[in-house]
Structures are given as structure tokens and as C-alpha cells.
């Protein structure tokens, strides 16, 4: 079948003169393969209204201040165990989740999950109270930093095993499709999880069954202490779906408007029944992998340079300025956010621990 005509599905080539259809291209050819199937459009940077810009600013600042406070409470011994902060990556969750339809779409992520919940509008008090292990926490103090959920808001965790959320998210997408509810699942994972085998098992089935899911790789450059190019043979992670026919887009994850623009394209693609899409968001975490990571695998200058040149919050401040928002108005928002975070911290410190009897509850739902 070597000389069979090109598949009828093949889109017309832009430059048909380059190759003779009768002769398959030689392997040596360095020319990029012409796309033989439909691809999503290159996303445009989103044009946000002043109100939207203010809202993104508010949300990103809330995440940043919340995480700084969480780091502080960890230092005071009020938060225990592992605690992975989202500082630096705020534009990703805010840009993507602002595009969702909260009445039907679902979100799932890994253990660096505080930011995604805040971007969902969940009450900072109950999130902080979960971090301090209190009864008022979103999981009644039984989940902690890595395991938080809000089924009511369709936020399905908060998963502690690297990569597990990718098949689980595909399962949520399966349920959307099975029920025909029009929902899309947004499944986040990191550059480290992108090397897990189960991710590719999920890619295969998601495309095979055309599941409504957006796979989001938050590439913050380091899987704990191992940089992407020390762990990934293909370090352009947006290409990781290609062999499953899942198109990928690489996006600047430090610019909330570029992220939001990509979300629009991805949601259009998935909602129109074309199956999954993969977004690689290039981002950066300023803090260590977790609180106990001294981050000796990168230089202080590297971190400082990202902070100075590409900080997502500084970037949106410039947008706000250009939109005519005064420095005073921004300061007022800063003050408001500080108060919200201080209130969350007070609540998390002063609310009671779970009752000892909670030890035995919620293991099984039913009685046998």
C-alpha cells in the first residue's frame, strides 16, 4: 500500500509543489511535516475589559498573598507536612479558569492546588483552615494541603500522586460526555508528571473516545530539583500529544491575557466535539518545590531575573495602568486582599481541630 493515494482526510497542502504525491518523502527530509489534520488556530492575546483586568489582578494577588501567608504559617509550625506554593504561577490558574463555565465544567489538579481553588472563588478561610488541619477546613481537616476538594464547585482535587489526576480527569471528561451535559474537564499537571506513563495511557483513550478534556501542562521548569531538559527527551512538552493526534499549543504562562486567549481556543476546540487538546503553559515557581526544598538546583539570580522581567502580577499592573486604573485604586485592592488573607489566617489559627470521633468517619459511606 506504499503508493496508495493520500488519505482523503488529509488537508490540502499549502505548497503542493514541494513533494510529488507518488513518492513518499525521504526520511532525511528536514522540512516540517505538513499538518495532515485540522489544527486549532493560534490563540490571540485576550482583550480584557477594565473590569476583567481588575478581577484578574485581584485573583492573582489573592493567590500570591495567600501563599505568602501559608509559607509564614508553615514557618510558625501551624501548617505541617508538605506544602507546595503556587507563587509565580498565578496567571495560569486565573487565566484558564476565568474562561470556564462554572455551571458545567470541572477542574482537577495535582498537589500544588491552593491557587486553583482560590481562582475558583472558594473561600480562602476554609482553604487556610484545611492547611492548618482544622474542622472548618474544606475537607474537615482530613485532607491537608495536597488533598482538597469541592464537589459542589466541581473542583475534584487536589491529588497527591504525581500524574494520577490525568486519568482521573479523563474519567471526569468521560462522565461529561456520557451524560451529554456539555461540560469540559480542565486537568492540570506539571512538567514532572508529563513523564508519567499513565499520562499517555490517558491521552490515548481521551483521543480515541474524543473526550472533552483540556490537558494543561504547567511547565514551571523544575520537577522538584530536576530541570525539564535533564528529565525529558522531548522538552517541548506541547508536542507530547502529537503521537496520539492531540494538538498542542505552547503558551506564555506568565501573561494572564495570553493564557486566557489560549483558553478560548482550547474550549472552542473541545466544545465543538474535536476531542482533547493540550496546552503547555511556560511558567515559573519562585519558591522551592515544597516548603522543605532549599532549591539549590538553580541560582538566586535566575529566580530574581524571572521576578524582575516576567512577574505576572507586575505585568497586569501595567495593563491596568494603561487602562486608566490609578495607583491608588490598585493600592486599595492590595489593602483589601491583605485584609482577606489576614482574616483567613486568623480563622485558620483560631478555629478548632476536628473532634476525635472524626477519626472514624467517612471511611466508607454505607454501613454493612
Amino acid at each position, binding site marked *: 500500500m506504499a503508493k496508495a493515494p493520500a488519505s482523503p482526510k488529509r488537508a490540502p497542502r499549502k505548497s503542493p509543489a514541494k513533494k510529488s504525491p507518488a513518492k513518499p518523502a525521504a526520511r532525511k527530509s528536514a522540512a516540517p511535516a505538513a499538518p495532515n489534520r485540522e489544527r486549532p488556530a493560534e490563540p490571540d492575546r485576550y482583550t480584557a475589559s477594565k473590569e476583567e483586568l481588575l478581577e484578574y489582578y485581584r485573583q492573582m494577588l489573592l493567590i500570591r498573598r495567600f501563599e*505568602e501567608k501559608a*509559607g509564614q504559617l508553615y514557618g510558625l509550625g501551624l501548617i505541617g507536612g508538605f506544602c507546595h506554593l503556587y507563587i509565580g504561577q498565578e496567571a495560569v490558574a486565573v487565566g484558564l479558569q476565568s474562561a470556564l463555565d462554572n455551571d458545567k465544567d470541572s477542574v482537577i489538579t495535582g498537589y500544588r492546588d491552593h491557587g486553583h481553588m482560590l481562582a475558583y472563588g472558594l473561600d480562602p478561610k476554609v482553604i487556610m483552615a484545611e492547611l492548618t488541619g482544622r474542622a472548618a477546613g474544606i475537607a474537615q481537616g482530613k485532607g491537608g494541603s495536597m488533598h482538597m476538594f469541592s464537589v459542589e464547585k466541581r473542583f475534584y*482535587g487536589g491529588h497527591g500522586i504525581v500524574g494520577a489526576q490525568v*486519568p482521573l480527569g479523563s*474519567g*471526569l471528561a468521560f*462522565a461529561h460526555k456520557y451524560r451529554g451535559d456539555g461540560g469540559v474537564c480542565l486537568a492540570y499537571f506539571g512538567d514532572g508528571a508529563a513523564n508519567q506513563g499513565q499520562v499517555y495511557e490517558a491521552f490515548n483513550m481521551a483521543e480515541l473516545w474524543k473526550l472533552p478534556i483540556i490537558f494543561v501542562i504547567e511547565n514551571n521548569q523544575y520537577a522538584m530539583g530536576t530541570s525539564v531538559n535533564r528529565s525529558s527527551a522531548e522538552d517541548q512538552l506541547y508536542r507530547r500529544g502529537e503521537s496520539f493526534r492531540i494538538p498542542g499549543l505552547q503558551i506564555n504562562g506568565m501573561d494572564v491575557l495570553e493564557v486566557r486567549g489560549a483558553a478560548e481556543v482550547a474550549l472552542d476546540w473541545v466544545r465543538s466535539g474535536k476531542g482533547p487538546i493540550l496546552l503547555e503553559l511556560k511558567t515559573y515557581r519562585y519558591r522551592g518545590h515544597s516548603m522543605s526544598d532549599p532549591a539549590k538546583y538553580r541560582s*538566586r539570580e535566575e529566580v530574581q531575573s524571572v521576578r524582575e522581567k516576567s512577574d505576572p502580577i507586575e505585568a497586569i499592573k501595567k495593563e491596568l495602568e494603561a487602562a486608566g486604573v490609578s495607583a491608588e485604586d490598585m493600592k486599595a485592592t492590595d489593602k483589601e486582599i491583605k485584609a482577606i488573607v489576614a482574616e483567613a489566617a486568623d480563622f485558620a489559627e483560631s478555629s478548632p481541630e476536628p473532634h476525635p*470521633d472524626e477519626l472514624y468517619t467517612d471511611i466508607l459511606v*454505607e454501613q454493612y
Partner: protein
Amino acid sequence: MAIELKMPALSPTMEEGTLAKWLVKEGDTVSAGDIMAEIETDKATMEFEAVDEGVLAKILVPEGTDEVAVGAVIALLAEEGEDADNVEAAPASEPAPAPAPAESAEPEADDAPPVKPEPAPRASDPDLPEGTAMVTLTLREALRDAMAEEMRDDDRVFVMGEEVAQYQGAYKVTQGLLDEFGDKRVIDTPITEYGFAGIGTGAAMGGLRPIVEFMTFNFAMQAIDHIINSAGKTNYMSGGQMRCPIVFRGPNGAASRVGAQHSQNYGPWYAAVPGLVVIAPYSAADAKGLLKSAIRTTDPVVFLENELLYGQSFEVPDTDDYVVPIGKARTVRSGNDVSIVTYSIGVGIALEAADKLAEEGIEADIVDLRTLRPLDKAAVLESLSRTNRMIVVEEGWPTCSISSEIVAICMEEGFDDLDAPVMRVTNEDVPMPYAANLEKLALVNVDKVVAAAKAVSYR
């Protein structure tokens, strides 16, 4: 009032550390994110970042100080508009201990141990309506009927796995389901256990009722992370918010001449996990009634079948509403001389052994556990209280097994009823060999059961 900077805890276990170096000096203006000091722990040197902005007013712990306790005030930061030369420390405050736990309905002493809920009263097998006919079915037909009946009743129920649809099931357990329910609800998967177990689990979290078939439970080891970490623990970790009503089912235990990697009993593995329900039936009636319960329950269930039993025929009540309660053992043969506790294919071996024992005047009381978690302790102890002797028959390894668990239960809660040590009759503690003679030697068999029953009867 100045902001107190406290010695941070930089790891889950840190209690004190060395303040190795100050990178700022008194009078410096700092902003959030600036590195202020280096702190050495037993594991690493960490940087201490400023969280607030202000002017460093006073260093209270000089650099080079060892054994600085976590939480000790190490410096004072003057806030905007405050005079850095004249700061005033807030009254010394340790991190406040957590307030007392949430009030319960009844007041109790502070150090009272948590109250462990009593197990629910044991349900009993359903009474069949008078005149219910019995029908002879193989185990595989009974399992298929259970799935088909539940799928007719509840359109959230679907089945996925390798070869479950077009091939009609690798062991023909799903035969006919594709024709009746179509490919939306009977789904062939690629050979990717980890992936489809995760997708099934996610679908259950999203509100569906999946039945995930493993071609055998040997392959489920590829997927065990989702069974235990994702399905088994999420309800607890979410404070009871996130349900996972899923059934993982397929053949378990030794088949025949398939060697070590394909011959293993995972009952003890899954039964060790709080958050899972584990069922391992023997008869077709129990398999049908329990699979229906498993599909209906809101909890994640591991349902262990046995390939060697798939073709065996049993009497099954001829009704589409035969539901057997989870968590209840069944006495399959009554006797007062020795108890034989067993499950799955072990029940058949125990029944044969009981016939031989009866010829020698020993009447065995056979308890089929049926559910391995939650385990019906009461049924085990009740049988022991009548016979005062017990053996446990298990087609599986002896170490850390269901048998070991039964022995522990008898020691802890039935000690006064014991007239002899409880003995385990299991497979040999070896990987399953291929050679026919060695395989036979490795497996539990009727003669070993008879010998053990006589030994605990001192005969």
C-alpha cells in the same frame, strides 16, 4: 507596632536550627521576597525570605547562633510609617495552641479516646418469596446476569475493560452485554490497566457507576495506585464529600498451569486497605447477589472472582432482585466439632474435606466469609464458640493473609473458646511453579485440610 520575624520551621520535622548568616542589616529596607537570612537545618541550608515590607529595625538573634528554637523571635521589622529606631515589640507570643476540638453533642473529658463506632447489626440474607424457583447457572452466567440487571435499572452503570465488548469477554463473563446495551455502555479499552482504572475512578467521582473489568487481577497491579490511593482514600480525604461508587472485578487467584505471574490471590492485599470493600464469593447465587450489592453501594468495591469456578454450575434463585448483603458470612455446612473458615475457591475444598471428615465422625462447621472487608468477625467467633477448634482454608500465601487475620481475631476476641491453636491451611509460601507436579504441591488441597482438621481435634 513592629512585625516580629520568627525562626521558621523549614521542614516537617524541624524543631530548631542555626541562624547561619544575616544577609540584611539593621536599617535596611526590605520588600516581600527579599532573602534576609540563611538558616541551617540538619538537612540543608535554607533561605529565609521577607514576607512583609518594611525596615529591619532590630536583629535579636545574631548570626552564628545555634539551636534557635522554631518560633523564637529573631528580628523586628518596622512597618511603613513606623520609626525604625524606636520600635516596640509586640507582647511576646508563642504560636497559639490549637483551640479545643469542635464540641460534640455530649461533653466529655479532654483526653477521652475517640469513640469508635460499633459495627452495624449484621444483615441477613434476603428471604425469597415463597415459590421462587431455582435455576441452574454457571458462575459466569450469574455474574453476567447481575451486571445486566443492574444496567437495566440504572443508566449510570457501564462496564469497561479489555475485550469486554466485541470479543464478549476474555472469559465470556460479559457475553451478550454489548448487544443489549451498545458501545456507549460496554466499552473495550486498550491494554492500559493504569489508565482505564484511573478513567473509571474519575468517572465514578464524576457521578457515574463504572464496573471496571480486569482480565485478571494479576494485571490490576499496574492499576493498584488508582484502586487504593484514588478510589479507596478520596472519601476520607475529602471529609466525606467525594464519593467513588465503582466496582473493580475480574478473576483472582491461581488458575491452572499459568506460572507465577498469573497465579496469585490479592484478597489480603486489598482487604488491608481501609476505604475499600472487598468481596470474594464462591457460589453463583452469592456471586450474583453480592455483585448486585457491589454495583449499588456508594463505596468502591474490589470484587474477586475465580477463573476455575467460572464454568461451575450452582442453583440460583430465579429472580432479578436477589441481593446479598455485603459484610456477612454464610454458614455453608453446619457441624459442632471443628470450624473451617474459608472463602472463594477454598469453600469447595472445605466442603469436600468435610465429607471425608464426616466419614471419620468429625462434623465440620464451614463459614464462607464471602466479604473480606469488612470482615464478619461475629460469624467467625460464633462458630468458634460452638466448636472450640478452628482451621482457616485459603487458596493463597500464608504470610500476612486473611488466615493470619482470622488467627489474630481468635486470639484477641475468642481466646477463652479455644481448645487448640488455630491452624492455617494455605498454599505453600512459594511463587507458583509451572511444572504440573510442583504446582499441585504448592496448592492447598483436600488432604491438607483433613489433616489440619484432625490435628486441631487431636485425632
